């Protein structure tokens, strides 16, 4: 049994379930009920000048902490640019 499967098994009994989301088209497992701010911290994603979108809709910065990801969600991040 891999450590991930162990973790998943335990999760079924005691901890929250894991869900699968994609971050810039790469699949990742995260605890269910994770909010965007927690995911940014967990994966050490850059924040400065960065924009995060879930299923192609940008999440306002003030709502990162209260936006909960769901199974299958597609998270994309990109840098703001200002060059002209």
């Amino acid at each position, binding site marked *: 049994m891999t450590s991930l499967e162990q973790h998943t098994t335990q999760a079924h009994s005691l901890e929250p379930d894991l869900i699968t989301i994609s971050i810039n088209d790469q699949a990742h497992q995260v605890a269910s009920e994770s909010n965007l701010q927690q995911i940014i911290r967990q994966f050490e994603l850059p924040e400065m000048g960065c924009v995060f*979108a879930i299923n*192609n809709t*940008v999440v*306002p910065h003030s*709502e990162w902490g209260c936006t909960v990801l769901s199974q299958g969600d597609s998270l994309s991040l990109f*840098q703001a*640019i*200002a060059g002209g």
Partner: protein
Amino acid sequence: MLTDNQFLRYQRQVAVPEIAEDGQERLSKSHVLIIGCGGLGSAASLYLAAAGTGKLVVVDDDEVDSSNLQRQVIYREHDLQVAKTEATAKQVAQLNSMVRVRPINKRLDKTQLQLEVMLADVVLDCSDNMPTRQLINQVCFESNTPLISAAATGWQGQFAVFDYQSFKQSKACYRCLYPFDELNNDQKCSASGVIGPVVGMLGNYQALAAIQKLATGKFHVATAKLHLFDGLKMQWQTMGISKDKQCLVCA
């Protein structure tokens, strides 16, 4: 009524049903404020002048440098060290003498910007830094003036239209999308690479959106959406922008 000269000159544009003679006449009475005369402003001002826009006001505080010529296609080698706004005004006048162009060779403070935005039918943000972009957004929002925003770096482009004339409260503003006043240094145009046709495409998108609004009376492109261009894959992607309930500008 279009003059015979106008009709002959703009016939291929007038022949487009959504434009027609009425649209051409509306365009010829329109006033566009273009802030920034770099790669975006170069493309946008040339196309808007060629299309017969009534009046262009072009703002920049910089001079033409040899490193600009790779992408800022309005300038010629003999324009080096000339103020960009003066060189732009000269090229526009040579391209289309029916277009009035007023160069402003300085950075506008908020009061001056408010006045210029008030006089304009649409504003093109062709600037190269975040503080200027935030100020332009705030002033456009406060004066209900449509904002056509674009930016480019490397192979990437970003484009968004905020129609503050028609949606005001219901949709997101530029600051809802980008709630910050500074970016990392490596994202500024002056410090990083940029491909000429990428910034040119984004400037042309701005001109295209302006022609939609000015000639047909409305934007046909989806507004308050972020359009992302990838110049390597040559693909566009569209993102929705949610209104930020804590936005410093529109909340």
